[in-house]
């Protein structure tokens, strides 16, 4: 049973390419993400990890390539406005800078897309929001504005906001990079719970031990290309690729 579920393909990228000012940032990315996978993108800064993530929900416009997301298949060369919304409504993004709607309270932030995009009733949106806010432990903050919350709390709200629209894939873009060190833990704990709940995740992070713990698949990128991919053990412990090992050695010294 579980095998069947886990081999169902959720997201497929084929030959994805993007350039900024004549500089090719992604040079033909092929990536397969199965349903329920937790895929972590790691690699040096400026490698295109975040760009790749942003391409998945079309915050960046790829020059070439194809994407299959659930039952939607698109060629980036012939994409239409309607297709963009289709893709975006199947994904949700958690940003490095949280990007909560500043003029709305915590509960409104979580309700907004459910009401405006999914056309849910206010009551249904409210109940779903309370459910998600309970999961991230912020039920006592529902009437606070983002500016009244700590970075960790804001990021937890933004995770609740992403979960509330029940996306098929949830994208995390360095969710703890902007946080004070003492607030990282609370956010990682929430992401871990999300990962365990079976939602498909693509995550960009510099928290290597966290990536090792929660990922089903680790993708090492360098200079706009995928260098290597595999299970956490394969990448973190058994990689024979020189660039992968060099990169990982900066982060931690292997025990034994």
């Amino acid at each position, binding site marked *: 049973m579980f095998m069947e579920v886990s081999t169902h393909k959720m997201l497929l990228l084929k030959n994805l390419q993007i350039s900024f000012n004549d500089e090719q940032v992604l040079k033909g990315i092929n990536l397969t993400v199965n349903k329920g996978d937790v895929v972590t993108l790691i690699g040096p800064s400026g490698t295109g990890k975040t760009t790749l993530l942003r391409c998945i929900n079309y915050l960046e416009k790829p020059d070439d390539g194809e994407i299959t997301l659930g039952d939607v298949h698109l060629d980036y060369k012939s994409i239409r406005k309607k297709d963009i919304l289709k893709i*975006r409504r199947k994904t949700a*993004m958690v*940003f490095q800078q*949280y990007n909560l*709607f500043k003029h709305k309270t915590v509960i409104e932030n979580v309700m907004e*897309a459910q009401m405006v995009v999914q056309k849910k009733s206010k009551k249904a949106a409210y109940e779903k929001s309370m459910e998600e806010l309970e999961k991230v432990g912020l039920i006592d903050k*529902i009437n606070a504005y983002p500016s009244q919350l700590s970075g960790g709390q804001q990021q937890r709200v933004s995770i609740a906001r992403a979960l509330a629209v029940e996306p098929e894939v949830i994208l995390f873009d360095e969710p703890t990079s902007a946080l004070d060190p003492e607030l990282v833990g609370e956010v990682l704990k929430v992401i871990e719970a999300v990962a365990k709940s079976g939602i498909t995740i693509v995550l960009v992070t510099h928290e290597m031990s966290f990536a090792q713990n929660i990922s089903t698949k680790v993708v090492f990128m360098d200079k706009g290309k995928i260098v290597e991919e595999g299970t956490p053990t394969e990448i973190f412990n058994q990689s024979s690729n020189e660039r992968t090992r060099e990169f990982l050695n900066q982060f931690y010294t292997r025990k034994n």
Partner: protein
Amino acid sequence: MDITFMLEILPQFLSVLPITLLIIVVSTICGFLLSVLVVAIRIKKVRLLNPIMGMYISFTRSTPILLQLFLIYYGLPVVLALMGIHINDMNPTTASIITLIIYNGAYMSEVVRPAYLAVERGQHEAADSLGFSPFKKLYRIIIPQVAPIALPGLGNAIIYLIHDTSLIFAIGVVDIMGLANIIISSNYGMNQIEIYLLIAIIYWIVSMLSEQMIKYLERRKQRLPYNGSTKEVA
């Protein structure tokens, strides 16, 4: 100081006040709409139109409005004649309204544009990533954040506009300022101070009222929409 004289001529001024108010209201609304159009062109960097808007704003903000008033009143019929449209006599009120719309479109656009740009990129991206349509994003997320930033500046623009209307008597509009000059000259310059003081008070009241209106809008924007009603759905 002749207070009874001031009270005597007050009804005359009140009878021309609607002209001033009409000019203010039409120029404010149309000027604002024009400014939104200008901002949209500049932000979308529409080819060809964008540099034209830059020139328009620069010219309008750098020349005296009195001069613009003359240019429109005397110049516009000439330009239109060249295009084959002949206007026999330009209505001074129309010319005033056109001038004030053009002036305010430029002035207000320089209030609206920075206010729009002050909303962080991340707010757009958050709405995009959740699948908001461009209209819904603008209406639900962006405008509510632009408005509180732009309102005080727009309020100032309206007050300047009210004061600028005092120049339109120069092309013969009989508004409150025009009427004041007519009364003064037919009165051989007597009671000049009373008349000017009276219309100063009228301008003051009109400005104050529009300021209060903007303040009311600002307060409304800051109201917290769900704070009471979450209890009701809970």
